[in-house]
């Protein structure tokens, strides 16, 4: 099911403006204990210039689905479904063809900047390399562009930084180098996979700002993957929530944040500590842990942890359907009931704790 304003609640994705169209993407990995179904039929589209956030816990399949777009999954991954970039199917393309798209039209930023950069080459070399891969320019020209890029994303003294090795820079600077590499060729899409998770909170803001600059400069669409709702809030127009390998809620950021239609999303929002609340309420965590992706029983995977679960939840996995005719879709049998639910009421005992 795609979420698009022009399509009905069970519609096919026929969005002509879709830059990236993921349709029924399924990824599984054979392991010793069985087949792990990391991604189970995910579909979404991203339009030009749009910023979409994908939120989920570890193991929800959010990273795997983006690696599938880039064709960077390990060899033993079994992929089915379709991922189209500007109408061109990416799954099944050979390495040579994919290499032309990667870093050029679709770029990716990974989680840990220390291990993402090659320790034996200078930062400048690695940025210039990205440029050389897709443009026939002189070495000097590429290095100049590298300096320019570093300056754009706010690294001071870029001319000196390009001769530094990755281990000589701080974590935040390294990640900005990775962003510079990603934006080097003015891609159409930037996929950022947990770009701030490995960094200190104080540095996160800087990096996110660099990301915004990158978007602004290149006009690229952004797929921002994270488990941190706070990161999403300021930087994505649309959100997709993933749980146990499937999308469980999609919509605009505002819709999903203020009127979540799926208990999991409600729980996520309710478990966030907030500095602006004056009443001393307990955090309401979601009890339990995400299911193992090896032997998913039938029914909704969130059922064991869901306070609203009923028999139908065990029996039938809910589909991602639009709620009340809007573009906001949720995968819950009771999506229409959820309108004014309160996390504290639903998930826990909302006792007031006197400080």
């Amino acid at each position, binding site marked *: 099911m795609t979420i698009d304003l022009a399509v009905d609640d069970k519609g096919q994705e026929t969005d002509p403006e879709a830059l990236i169209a993921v349709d029924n993407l399924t990824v599984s990995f054979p*392991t010793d204990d069985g087949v792990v179904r990391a991604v189970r039929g995910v579909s979404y589209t991203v339009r030009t210039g749009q910023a979409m956030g994908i939120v989920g816990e570890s193991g929800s399949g959010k990273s795997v689905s983006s690696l599938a777009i880039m064709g960077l999954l390990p*060899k033993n991954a079994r992929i089915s479904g379709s991922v189209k970039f500007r109408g061109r199917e990416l799954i099944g393309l050979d390495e040579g063809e994919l290499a032309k798209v990667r870093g050029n039209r679709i770029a990716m930023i990974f989680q840990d900047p220390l291990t993402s950069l090659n320790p034996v080459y200078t930062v400048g070399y690695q940025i210039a390399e990205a440029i050389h891969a897709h443009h026939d320019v002189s070495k000097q020209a590429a290095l100049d562009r590298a300096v320019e890029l570093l300056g754009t994303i706010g690294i001071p003294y870029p001319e000196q930084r390009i001769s530094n090795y990755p281990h000589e820079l701080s974590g935040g600077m390294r990640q900005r180098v990775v962003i510079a590499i990603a934006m080097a060729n003015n891609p159409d899409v930037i996929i950022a996979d947990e770009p701030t998770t490995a960094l200190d909170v104080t540095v996160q803001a800087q990096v996110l700002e660099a990301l915004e600059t990158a978007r602004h400069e290149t006009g690229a669409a952004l797929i921002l993957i994270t488990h941190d709702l706070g990161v999403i809030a300021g930087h994505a127009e649309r959100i997709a929530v993933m749980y146990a390998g499937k999308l469980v809620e999609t919509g605009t950021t505002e819709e999903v944040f203020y009127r979540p239609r799926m208990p999991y999303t409600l729980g996520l929002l309710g478990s966030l500590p907030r500095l602006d609340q004056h009443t001393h309420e307990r955090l309401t965590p979601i009890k339990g842990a995400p299911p193992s992706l090896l032997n998913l*029983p039938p029914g909704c995977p969130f059922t064991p942890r869901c306070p609203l679960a009923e028999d139908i939840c065990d029996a039938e996995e809910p589909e991602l359907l639009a709620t009340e005719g809007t573009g906001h879709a949720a995968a819950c049998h009771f999506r229409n009931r959820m309108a004014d639910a309160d996390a504290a009421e639903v998930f826990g005992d909302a006792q007031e704790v006197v400080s």
Partner: protein
Amino acid sequence: MLETHDTVTEERTEAETGKPQVEREFTVKERGYWRMAGRRFLRHRAAVISLVVFILLVLFAFVGQRLWHYKWNGGFIDAQDINEAPSLKHPFGTDDKYDQMAEVMRGTQQSLKVAFMIAFFGTGAGAIWGVVSGFFGGVADSGLMRFADLILTIPPLALAAALAYQGGGKLWQIGIVLAAVSAPYVARVVRGVVLSLREREFIEAARALGATNVRIMFRHLLPNTTPVLIVNATLLIAAGILLETALSYVGFGIQPPDTSLGLLIVNAQGAVDTRPWLFYFPGIFIILIALTVNFIGDGLRDALDPRQTRERR
């Protein structure tokens, strides 16, 4: 090294939800570290086959001697049977005195004994050396490791030859000498592991609970080096067999009247052309031992310390 739990069971008590329970147990069994290692090992076809072959070799050498009616130092071979190629009567042929199968059995037995001695004492000494060095650090560590490096600067064969020179070439002497030559290597490896473990929280916790140094070293650090020790011990067995052979070649290994596989092939050098069975059989046995042990060691290494995720094809 600690337990890994793969179970995920989801249960809610009836009291919590007031609804009838749904048990959603996901059937992934809980397994301990050693069981998982065992499973991983069994998946290495080469290692498992090698283990079987190795056991057969050991049986051949130790048990076979009792069952085979010719003896390695006995007699009882008919005069006309000397220097004969392999036949039904003498499956490995004969030399000018004895039945070769008996010789190879005895040789294998002795070589295996030496190899096990090297592995056992070398690993043992090396482990204690490494743990003490790594644990205490500072000057003691520097000193002990410098000493190890020192020994390692001398070519092992030369060192072994020099040390074995004075001895009578008895099996246990050879074993000890070669073990001494191998220990520094194990010590270095073990020290490395200990250094990385030393700073871990469980050591701090043990200390906070009042454990003495000795206790920490032997109850906490040493057991965690077990995987490394096991792998290294198997490597030493293989290396030991080859080292023993080389030592025999230069004349400082096990001396007659006893025999070893190394000595057998050394004595058969000149006969490669004329009585090849004297040369090939012992050699093949050496290769078999070293090869099977190497594969087993490889399998053990993967089983006990899997760092890369193995794909399933």
